[in-house]
């Protein structure tokens, strides 16, 4: 059963709706005790990474999250929280995966936010089981995670190559919104719920 870290960073209606459609059981995690109840964790998040980090701090869950050994999936800003630092508000983040979150550069003649469907190239990680290379996912973000081959499990191009998904040990993150990415996105959620470590 999936526990969703409930820290008030954005709306999770679409995420819970997607899990319900897929018959994946889920519940909300509000405190440390509730972390124990679930086999898998999702850290959702939209909006400002720095503000999200502050809200996560307020839950008092940070140290417990860092110690987790069960599969954890950060989505969008939830993924960025796993990184070391974001240029958004010059924010220090969880530093579970030692990569940087940076702002898209408009001098690359791209529009910001990066909004819409973009293709990914993945590295055959279990999270992408059954997903073809160049499958498209729905992205909405103005900040991106730098490409680092050590932690990258899927990349995308928007002005430059960036990480669409990262992984270190039991921690996973996806920049796109699986709950809004059609059937391919649903498969990502399904694969995550089936991960065993």
């Amino acid at each position: 059963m999936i526990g969703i870290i409930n820290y008030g960073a954005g709306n999770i209606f679409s995420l819970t709706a997607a899990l319900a459609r897929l018959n994946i059981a889920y519940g909300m995690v509000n405190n440390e005790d509730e972390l124990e109840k679930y086999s898998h964790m999702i850290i959702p998040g939209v909006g400002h990474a720095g503000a999200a980090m502050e809200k996560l701090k307020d839950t008092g869950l940070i140290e417990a999250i860092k110690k987790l050994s069960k599969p954890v999936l950060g989505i969008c800003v939830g993924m960025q929280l796993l990184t070391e630092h974001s240029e958004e508000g010059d924010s220090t983040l969880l530093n579970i995966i030692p990569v940087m979150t940076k702002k898209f550069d408009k001098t690359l003649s791209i529009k910001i936010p990066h909004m819409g469907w973009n293709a990914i190239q993945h590295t055959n990680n279990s999270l992408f089981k059954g997903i073809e290379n160049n499958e498209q996912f729905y992205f909405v973000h103005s900040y991106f995670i730098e490409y680092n081959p050590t932690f990258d499990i899927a990349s995308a191009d928007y002005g430059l190559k960036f990480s669409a998904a990262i992984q270190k040990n039991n921690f996973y993150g996806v920049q796109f919104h699986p709950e809004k990415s059609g059937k391919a996105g649903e498969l990502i959620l399904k694969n995550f719920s089936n991960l065993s470590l």
Partner: protein
Amino acid sequence: MLSKRIIPCLDVKDGRTVKGVNFVDLRDAGDPVELAAQYAQQGADELVFLDITATHERRKTMIEMVKSVARQLNIPFTIGGGISEIADAEALLNAGADKISINSAAVRNPKLIEELAKAFGVQFVVLAVDTKYINGKNMVHLNGGRLITELETENWIKQAEDLGAGEILLTSMDHDGTKAGFDCGLLGKINHMINIPIIASGGAGNMEHFTEVFQKANVDAALAASVFHYGEILIPDLKQELKRNHIPVRI
């Protein structure tokens, strides 16, 4: 590469879709949830729901509809119509809407754009602009083109971008309903001025019009209503046609 988006627009009144829809396998063409799911299955990249209800009960009915859509739909969707304050937007966000589009309320109170962007992020705020060419100028109109404002379209859009609009939905009232093609000239001009995505609307009549608006104006997305609802253009065919013309699409 980022795909160009195809967006069907659905008019909603009292929680039901209006305008004739003739998909053969639809049991209830007035059911926004079923219709939305059908479009998603056909390969629509996103949907826009425009609430054209005028009653006081509107908001409650609309919220219920948005929730039902969000439960079923696995692609993003935008809700527009009658949003004039933060509370309206927040209720829609919490019901599962990905974006809201604002139009006349933003003209009356431009600060609304800024407040919404601050509260929910720029990605949540679509500014819808209805424009008409009058005496050599592009002028912003309200009430479906019936009411002219003092705003010039180019200036208003630039101002909205600065205030925090995350996307522009530009409808040419001169082209809307003509089925003679999008207003590529104006769309291209506006697109050049701004650094946020722009959705072309008004004038789609055939598949070539979509190719044309992506090639000539390089817009990020194209929106249409009747050509999709009446089955005159099927989205899978349209995507294939765009792909043949080397326009990046999601298939």
